[in-house]
């Protein structure tokens, strides 16, 4: 039990050391190095204690159950955070005088994200979720040189607060109906009419809260504003790690509580999924700001991902395989896209995030332009990129279970999506209007290039990734 919890302990230790250290001596360089070190150490520790979860389910109190799938999620979150922290060093210097607390907050958010995939209980769910959200409030509003981040932070604070409240209310109703807070035992047993209604209301509220966190239609309104206003590093964290963590716990909830056996709930979720795919893509068509565009595109991608939720309740192993593959590729391509924005904005006070800003990028900054093209193609799901195989998994998922409404929406959404992703590509290809004067930090640029390489390598030969994921699922504790 202690062994399996080691990664969590290491991260927490690093977090505390950093917090105390900052109050004693302020140094951006030291804080940054300590954060990178903590993240790497936590990441590596997973390999040392993997034995513990490889053959057994490790239960840490009632609240957490660590298995190999949770470890996989953790590893992905840690890598993503590491990438963002590497970006953050140069990025922050231009935006605020006090940079050190940023790292404390982002480590805390990561800790929250690592709790969710292991959570089996409503208490740990809300705990992890709030650790992420509260860190994010501060992170979004972090830069003190400009107003938009503050506005975005406040918006997120109010709306996310409402989302959490809805979620809690839902849990209360579910508890009233089933008398349990543990995912696996919240079925209603007595089958009385009253219990059934309470259970339904509870789940409706619960899913509303979740849909808010995943920014699914119709709870998506906050997304573009917050994405736009937040500093790009934080936006990228919000788009990847925070959503991935919520998604991980949703998957577990769906499996353990067998929630989709209720037709009402499953129809409602299907409606949400279809609406997200179509509306997310439709709204993205008209955006001129890259970050807003990516916000809508992430709404659509979360809608696509909901297909997996249906698959996982019938065919758990293929479901998890699709979910993990999709999440990994979604992380890689989203980070690559944001990476370009971050790298371009690093040396300037304002963010380079408009479509005009990337005009002719391929000719002025060939590497950044190429990465952006690769990311856009991948997000659109075009072959040669990992995004294609991610989409392939979803098609397989939809078709194998005969979920035709979802497949139709997936085709429709992807078709619409191509339109605006291609617009990004077109802007990077056109003749540059003016020479882009900003310089790009080498570290940020080389990371984005690495991400783009990952997109293409796995797009050409996904077998290693597929094999890795299947190896994780060989002993499927929750299956």
């Amino acid at each position, binding site marked *: 039990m202690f062994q399996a919890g080691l990664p969590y302990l290491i991260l927490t230790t690093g977090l505390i050391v950093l917090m105390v250290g900052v109050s004693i001596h302020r140094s951006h360089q030291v804080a940054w190095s300590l954060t990178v070190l903590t993240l790497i150490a936590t990441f590596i520790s997973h390999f040392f204690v993997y034995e513990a979860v490889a053959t057994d389910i490790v239960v840490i109190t009632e609240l957490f159950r660590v298995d190999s799938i949770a470890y996989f999620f953790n590893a992905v979150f840690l890598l993503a955070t590491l990438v963002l922290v590497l970006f953050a060093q140069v990025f922050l210097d231009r935006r605020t005088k006090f940079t050190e607390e940023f790292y404390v907050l982002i480590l805390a958010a990561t800790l929250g994200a690592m709790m969710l995939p292991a959570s089996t209980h409503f208490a740990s769910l809300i705990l992890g979720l709030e650790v992420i959200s509260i860190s994010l409030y501060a992170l979004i509003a972090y830069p003190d040189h400009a107003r938009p981040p503050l506005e975005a932070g406040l918006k997120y604070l109010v709306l996310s607060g409402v989302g959490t409240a809805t979620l809690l209310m839902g849990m209360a109703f579910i508890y009233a109906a089933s008398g349990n807070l543990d995912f696996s035992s919240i079925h209603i047993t007595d089958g009385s009419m009253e219990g059934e209604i309470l259970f339904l209301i509870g789940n409706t509220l619960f899913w509303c809260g979740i849909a808010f966190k995943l920014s699914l239609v119709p709870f998506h309104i906050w997304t573009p504003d917050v994405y736009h206003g937040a500093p790009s590093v934080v936006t990228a964290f919000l788009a990847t790690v925070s959503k991935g963590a919520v998604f991980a716990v949703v998957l577990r909830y769906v499996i353990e509580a067998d929630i989709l056996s209720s037709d009402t709930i499953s129809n409602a979720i299907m409606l949400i999924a279809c609406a997200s795919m179509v509306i997310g893509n439709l709204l993205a068509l008209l955006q001129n700001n890259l970050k807003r565009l990516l916000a809508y595109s992430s709404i659509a991608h979360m809608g696509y991902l909901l297909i997996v939720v249906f698959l996982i309740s019938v065919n758990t192993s293929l479901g998890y395989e699709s979910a993990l593959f999709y999440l990994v590729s979604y992380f890689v391509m989203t980070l690559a896209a944001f990476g370009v924005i971050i790298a371009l904005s690093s040396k300037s006070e304002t963010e380079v995030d408009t479509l005009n800003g990337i005009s002719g990028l391929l000719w002025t900054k060939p590497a950044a332009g190429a990465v952006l093209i690769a990311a856009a193609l991948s997000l659109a799901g075009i*072959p*040669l990129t990992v995004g294609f195989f991610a989409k392939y998994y979803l*098609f397989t998922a939809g078709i*194998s279970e005969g979920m035709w409404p979802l*497949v139709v929406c997936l*085709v429709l959404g992807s078709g619409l999506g*191509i339109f605006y992703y291609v617009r990004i590509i077109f802007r990077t290809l056109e003749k540059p209007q003016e020479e882009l004067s900003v310089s790009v930090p080498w570290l940020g640029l080389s990371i984005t290039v690495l991400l783009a390489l990952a997109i293409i390598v796995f797009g050409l030969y996904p*077998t290693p990734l597929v094999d890795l994921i299947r190896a994780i699922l060989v002993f499927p504790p929750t299956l």
Partner: protein
Amino acid sequence: MLAAGGVAWISERIHVNLPRWLSLLTFIGVTAWVGAVWLGGPDQSGLYANQFIEWIPRFGINLIFQIDGLSLLLIGLTAILGVAAVVSSWTETKQRTGFFQFNVLWVMAGVVGVFSSFDLLLFFFFWEVMLIPMYFLIAIWGHEDKEYAAMKFFLFTQISGLLMLVAIIALVWVNYEATNTLTFSYEALLGLELEGSIARLLMLGFFIAFVTKLPSVPVHTWLPDAHTQAPTAGSVILAGILLKTGAYGIIRFVITLFPEASQDFWFWGMLLGVISILYGGYLAYSQTDFKRLVAYSSIAHMGFVLVGVYSFTTLGMQGAIVTVIAHGFSTAALFMMAGALQERLHSREMSDMGGLWQKAPRMGAVTMFFVVASVGMPGLGNFIGEFLVLVGAFNKSIVLTVLATFGVVVAAVYGLSLMQRSFQGELNPRVSEMQDFGVREMSLMAVLMIALIWIGVHPQTVLALSDGFVQILEVIP
């Protein structure tokens, strides 16, 4: 070829002309390879080449490359037109030649992949791979309205491609439920018995994708725009080869994977073909833009392919294949002519032309030859193709065949009007000086002419190669 593309891109830095030479050499190399394989003859199972490499064993997706007679024929066409595309754009693209050749090579590599993949997902992979560089070709080196054209091209082909992907996965899944093996191999899926309604739906998924590429009415509208805006090499590739992948797809996949559903579909297939022939011809006649006219004529010619394929007769099928090859040569030549004219006159409008024969007799003669070929003069390749198609189709439906025959007349009308408006008549006063074709262009045209005449007088070369495949169709009831 992919590697050569990468090399070409880099070599731009060394010398401006180097990428051109490199890709020219690559295409000549591929042509030589095709020739060598052809002379080497097929093995016992009728294959010229066969490769199997594991790719994604999880889903039974493998790299299966096989080249039979039909594939070899089309790859040969690709290689020769590759040479043509490079040579014809020798002076046209002045900026970023390295990246340009990179894209040309990648399109071609994708097309060769399409023609030789025997794994459905691999096929789809290449199907999409050839589109992206094509999109770049239009979007970067295109003419005035390139953004619109490139976007339209991409949207049409991508969305229809998605339908095909759904159909492919569904087909594989039906097979999985029937046999409990997950495989995307073409041969494994050939024997699958499908229920009528499912087969019809899946067939439509494939059919729509291929027909969009072909293109046939009513999904043809991307073609004139893409063609007109594309640089010469782009048009040559687009008309000469990319359209052929649509025809190839129908012949290779739709008909063999869904034999019964396709048989039931014959009337609609032929009808679409006939409408394309007449409507495409009608639209071609009313164009004033040299390139647009040729583009619309392509729609008409591809209509013959549909008619031939859906006649379900040996003759019709053979005719369709010959038409595919011959049209590849003749249209490519006409697009090169359009490109050459634009380079000299800076206009594609035929009202800016007229009487050009006096200034450039060699160009006039060459154009004459290819216009006549595309109209279908006996002795040249296109005639053989269309003739076989019509004879084959006659057995199936007399009414539709008669209508299609009218298409040949329409072709003569627009073909000759093209000739007359641009090269004959009074010399347009606005044309001052014009350079005639040089050695480079003439020798290229000569190769294409010889190819067309060869198919025209000795079609057996083509027929023998495609025979093996057509025989397989005979077995299918």
